[in-house]
Structure formats: C-alpha cells, structure tokens
C-alpha cells in the first residue's frame, strides 16, 4: 500500500495536540518529512524499520531478558519517523530550562549551607526534613563553582493547548542520552536524504561538551586531570550508555572495585600501580556511592569516597545530595525558587500538582481521582503510579489506603493528554503519545542544551505511559530551523 493512503487514514485523537496535523492541514515543520513519506510504500518503511532494529542489535544496544536460564537480547523499541520541534519552540525551551537549572543549583547550594529559603518560609522546612533524598552527609560540602546539577534530563510534555510543561526534574543520574545520539545515527542510515534536506540542528557534540565540563571541574592545580566514569557494572540497564560515553570522551570506565581511597584521595588500580582520579562522573546512586557513609552493604561504591569529596580532592558529577531537588513534592516549589533566587517569572510552567500531605488537596484529588494521576514521590520509571482513568475500584481502594497511611509520599497531577506524533506501527501510520527529555549541561561557563533530546513514545494505542520499563519506545528528535 502507498504511504499516501496511510497518511490519509491518519486520524489524530480528539482533544489532543497532534504535532504533525493541526485541525486542517500538515504543520509547516512536518512538510519535508510528510513529502518524503508520501513517496515511499509500506514495504519500504518496513525494511527501514527492520534495518533500524538490526543496527541496534549489532551494536549491542540491547537489554537481556532471561528465560529458562537462557539470556535473550532485546532492543528498546525505536520508531523510525522523527519527531519534529521548531527552532523557535526550542529556543524558548532552552531559556526556560536554563532559568530552571540556575534556580535549582542555587537551591541546592542554599539547602546544604545556609538554608535561607527555609528561614524565609518559601519552602516549608518540614517538607525538606521529611524528604528521604535530603542527604545530611552532604551538608557543608563545597563543590567546584557551586555547581550541583552538571547533567540533567528534565522531562517535558506538551498539553492539549500546544504548550510545553515541565513534568519532572531528573537531577541525579539521568539516562537516555546515548539513545538520543544513537537514534540520530540510525536515522542517518535509514533517511539520509530527508535528514540532510531538513536543516536539522546537530546533537553530535554532546560528548565533547560534557568532556569540557568535566575537565573544568578538576582542580586548577592539575594540568592533566584524570577523569573516570563510575558504572555499577555490565548488568546495569544503562551500561551501554556508560560505555558509549566513556568511548566518546576517551575516559576510563571504572567500577567501584577499580577504585581505592588512600589518605582522602581516590585512585584507580592499574597494571602499573595506583593512579589518582580528579573527576568522577558517577552513574551510581548516592546511597551506593560509599559504604562508609551510606548503605553499608554496597559493593558498587568506594569506601571513603565521601571523605575525599568533602576535602575537595575529587569532584563528583552530579553532586551528592541532588535528590532533594528533584523530589516530586519539592517539584511544586520550583516556580517559587525561580522567583525567590532569580526574581524572575518562570518561563516554563509546571504541571499543576497537588501535595497529598495537604488534607484539602487530598480530598479534592480523591473526589476527582478519575481525572488524576497519582505518583509516589520516592519512585520513578512509571513505578508506583496510579492512573485514575484506568484503575479498577478494587485497586483504587487498596491504593487509597496506602496513600492515607503516608500522604507525604504522594503527589497528584491532572491527567494531561500528551501530544501525539505519527508512528509506524504494524504497517500503519498511527498517532501515539510522547514526552521529551532534553539533556542540559551546566558548567562554569553556563548552561548548554543539546538541540534534540530523547522523545519517549507510548507504543500502546491510547497509553500515556512512555517509560521504557513500561513498554515505551523512543524516536529521533529533530530541531528544525524552518526557512
């Protein structure tokens, strides 16, 4: 079948912002993609879909599913039709994210030192005191250039009004950037002409920018800083990304067992003896970083690492203790942080959020639960989430009891119909809901946002859950400067 016919059968959902179609016609930014697709047939697209899968498989961009002790390799689903955002939209996002990160950094500096924001009553002290991710061990530690969030992956969604909203701030060890880069490489293979004709901004310099920031964080006295990436190991689901970044930056990828702390300095164990480490880009969570300071049974970390960090002998990226700033309950106060620290109005809005520790808010949410999504503040990846529109009575009554036991651990947001984009699924072009995770780098010379990001797509029809752990896939994201 010709794609032209498939495109005619493409019917966007009602009350949803479709990124390819407005109510009458194709949006200008999708013109080039649309006209390329029109010239293809289904077989052609199916072949491209298959080739993309093979490319991911051959490069080992896979995760392992175990069945009867046999490991089966699977790829994360990739949809071949790129998602397009205009340059003007992107420039606004860039400003908004830059503003937000600046405020969040100031908040982290403040909360681990003077705590002025609490003294001034902008954020309730009990909210921070009850936050499981507030890290007392990090109190008073000075970090290079007062930068805490060097790498962030802030999740954005586009509502039915076409506006982008901040869904959550990922400020600890956000993953997925390798997919952003690999998705682009795969697109180069399957749609080379379409890409080169479309005036798409490049994402490829992300590793270079990251490497520059890591170098800048080392002490000025060190002429050749030794940078390493700390990974939990090959069984971590993001391991491919760790190796990818190490390779792209030309730095060593180490595990906790490769490191040792001696006299408050961190060293790697090499074939020629010990070698001092100056900067660690860790992909290990805070609680596993140092068994002497955090979880005692952690074998992923390095005993004594926090003492070296406290003395300034090693820089850790992202900083220890960032979890307090991307706590789902603290999230609601980020617009207030922006006003408090920067004296500016937020450029990007939050999704309206109800703290269930507030009895009035809890009552409102319970009365309108069918229109709400309730999230556990201590979980991510789509786990611990209650989708009010689809939950059964029995499940809701069970969930409600849990929420009433510890309301601090829950927030609620109105269900937002995420925008849809065209996807090639089962030989048809169909609308599917997406979000966007742009990757921002924050160094001594300011914030840099790589123009692209990871578009996560809910592959099931009607589903709003885009997390890869819940059956989501991804798309290449193009930022196009329309001529």
């Amino acid at each position, binding site marked *: 079948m010709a794609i032209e016919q498939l495109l005619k059968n493409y019917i966007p959902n009602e009350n949803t912002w479709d990124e390819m179609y407005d109510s009458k016609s194709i949006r200008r930014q999708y013109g080039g993609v649309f006209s390329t697709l029109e010239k293809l047939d289904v077989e052609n697209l199916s072949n491209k879909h298959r080739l993309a899968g093979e490319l991911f*498989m*051959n*490069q*080992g961009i896979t995760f392992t599913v175990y069945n009867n*002790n*046999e490991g089966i*390799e699977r790829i994360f689903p990739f949809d071949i039709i790129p998602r397009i955002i205009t340059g003007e939209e992107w420039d606004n996002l860039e400003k908004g994210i830059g503003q937000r990160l600046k405020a969040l950094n100031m908040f982290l500096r403040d909360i681990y030192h003077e705590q002025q924001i609490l003294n001034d009553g902008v954020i309730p002290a009990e909210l921070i005191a009850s936050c499981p991710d507030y890290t007392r061990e990090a109190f008073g530690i000075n970090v290079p250039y007062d930068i805490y969030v060097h790498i962030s992956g802030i999740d954005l969604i586009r509502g039915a009004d076409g506006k982008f909203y901040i869904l959550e701030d990922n400020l600890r060890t956000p993953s997925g950037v390798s997919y952003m880069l690999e998705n682009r490489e795969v697109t180069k293979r399957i749609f080379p002409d379409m890409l080169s004709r479309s005036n798409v901004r490049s994402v490829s310099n992300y590793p270079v920018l990251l490497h520059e920031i890591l170098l800048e964080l080392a002490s000025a006295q060190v002429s050749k800083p030794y940078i390493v990436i700390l990974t939990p*190991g*090959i069984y971590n689901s993001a*391991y*491919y990304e760790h*190796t*990818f970044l*190490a*390779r792209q930056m030309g*730095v*060593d*990828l*180490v*595990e906790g*067992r*490769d490191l040792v702390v001696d006299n408050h300095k961190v060293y*790697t*164990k*090499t*074939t*020629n*003896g010990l070698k001092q480490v100056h900067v660690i880009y860790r992909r290990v969570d805070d609680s596993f970083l140092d068994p002497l300071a955090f979880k005692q049974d952690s074998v992923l970390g390095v005993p004594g690492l926090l003492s070296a960090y406290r003395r300034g002998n090693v820089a850790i990226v992202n900083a220890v203790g960032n979890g307090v700033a991307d706590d789902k309950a603290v999230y609601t106060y980020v617009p207030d942080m922006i006003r408090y620290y920067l004296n500016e109005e937020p450029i990007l809005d939050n999704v309206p959020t109800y703290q269930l520790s507030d009895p009035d808010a809890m009552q409102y949410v319970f009365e309108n639960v069918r229109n709400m999504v309730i999230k556990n503040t201590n979980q991510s990846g789509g786990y611990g989430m209650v989708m009010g529109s689809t939950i059964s009575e029995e499940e809701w009554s069970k969930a409600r009891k849990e929420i009433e036991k510890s309301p601090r651990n829950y927030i609620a947001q109105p269900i937002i119909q995420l925008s849809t984009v065209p996807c090639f699924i089962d030989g048809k072009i169909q609308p599917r809901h997406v979000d966007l995770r742009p990757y921002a780098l924050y160094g001594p010379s300011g914030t840099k946002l790589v123009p692209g990001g990871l578009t996560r797509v809910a592959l099931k029809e009607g589903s709003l859950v885009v997390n890869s752990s819940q059956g989501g896939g991804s798309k290449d994201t193009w930022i196009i400067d329309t001529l």
Partner: protein
Amino acid sequence: MLSRIADSMFWMNRYMERVRSILRVARTHYIISLDRDVKGASWKSILEIFTLLEEKEIKELEGQTGKILQYLLTASENENSVKSLVSKARENARGIQDNITKELWEEVNSFYHVTNQPHLNHKLTGPDTLDVIDLFMRHSIICSGISDITMQRGTGWDIMKLGKYMERCMETLILTDKHCEFFQYELEKERDITQWRFLLLSLSGYEAYLKSYRTFKHNQNVMHQVLFNEDFPHSVSYSLNMLDKCLSKLIVGNKNPEIPDLIRTFGKLHAKIKYLDPSIICHMDLQTFFMEMRTDMKILHAKQSNIFFSY
C-alpha cells in the same frame, strides 16, 4: 591501564583463541572422519581435550558425530563449547567496550548472536555441518583481523597478545601431547605422514610442513615444526617468543616487587625450548616433557595474573 580492564582483555582474547582452536580441530576431525581407516585421532581424544566429560559420558557420545559437534560447538551446558566461550568473550568485551574499538565490539557481539541462532544447532547433525563450522570460523577470523587492524598498540594490545599466545602455546602443547600419547610416546619408530596429518591440520600447519620439510623423517620434522620452528605461528617456540616480547614491554616502568620472579619463571620456561637440541626430541621422555611444560605454563599464568590483574 586498569587491572580489571587488563584482565578482561586477556580473557577475551584467550577465549577467542580457544574458539579458533576448537573450530580448527573439529573441522579437521570431521573431514578426516569421513574417510575410512584414518589413524591419528578419535572424537574420544578431542572430547578429552576440550570438555570435562567423564569417560562414561564420552563413551555414550562416541560414534554420534552430530551430537559430539553440537556438544563442542553449540551446547550451553558445555562450559567450553564455542557458544559458551564466545558468550564469555562477549561478556568480557562488554565490560571493556570503551577500551576496544567499536568495530571489534560489534564483531564479537555479532559472533555471539550468530552462535545463539537455534537453527544452526540442528544443522550440525545434517549435511550442512561444514557450513556451520565455516560460518563460526569466518567470524572468529574476522574478529582476529579486526582486532589486528583497528586496535591501538600499547598496554592493552600487549595484554591481549599475552592471552592469545598463552592459550595458543597451551593448545599446541596439549594437542601434540595427546597425539604423542596415541603413539604411546614412541617416536623412535618412524611414522607415516598421514598419521601426523590430523595434528598438522589442526594447527593450520600441514601445507607449511609440506613446503618446509623435504625429508621423510616425519617424527623429527613434525616435532620440529610444532615445537621449535620460529616461523610457524602455531609452534610453541613462536608463542613463547611472542610472550617474551609482550612481557618485556609490559614490565617497563612497573615497580611491582614480584616482577623479577615473573621474569625468572618465564626465562626458565622459554629456555626449555630455546636451548633444547631438536635432534634429541624423539628420544626424550616426552610424556614428562609435556607435563612439565604445561605445569610451567600454569605457574606463569598464575604469576602474571597476580601482577597485572590483582584488583
């Protein structure tokens, strides 16, 4: 270089070398076994070399070529099958992806996926047996070639070669020992070249032998080729010379106090071949000679691991 990375590089290459060895031996034996009245080897001796099967289990398998090949090549329950070894090599490669080239990683990964294709297992019992062995062989050779043309020279490269030549030296010693055992270590009695063919083909040295050795003293000549010939890449001497070069580079600037002991251990082992008169080899107690060489190799491995891989 990180000790853990060095360890993985060593084992990745060692496993890949073993894969090539198993494939060569299996291919050679499969082809030879199609002829009648072939002397020199049996599946039994191959299973004894490359598997941990008990005598009773080997007896049960003997005579079932397809099943034996499946066990040697694609059986997950055999820790030393090609499939298991490639899987282990890939596991090591996965942990050092940033230290090997993208091309090498992708080839090791692709080889792994090939060994996991279930239909190949069935093919080993039918007329397409050689196609499967050749497919595996091609991948293993491509891995070796890619590693040769893309890998940066330096510590990592020397460590990889250390793994490769330790394995190769050991394989040559074991295969030759097993072959001599078949002759009850009686090499004073002259043997026909056909009786040595299996060993030479298994070491990719049959054609080289025909070109290099013109006399009919096959026992003496073959032993010279596999033990002393410095130009034959599968000889013990060649492997030891390569190990000598790698170790010399690796110890530069290394202040580990155990280095002198490592040099002594290797020197003694190397001297056993380097300064041995090749003309007396057929008159020696070969059983003891091979046993000592193998033991010395194991000691060398333990000592170098202790120095370079202790993490």
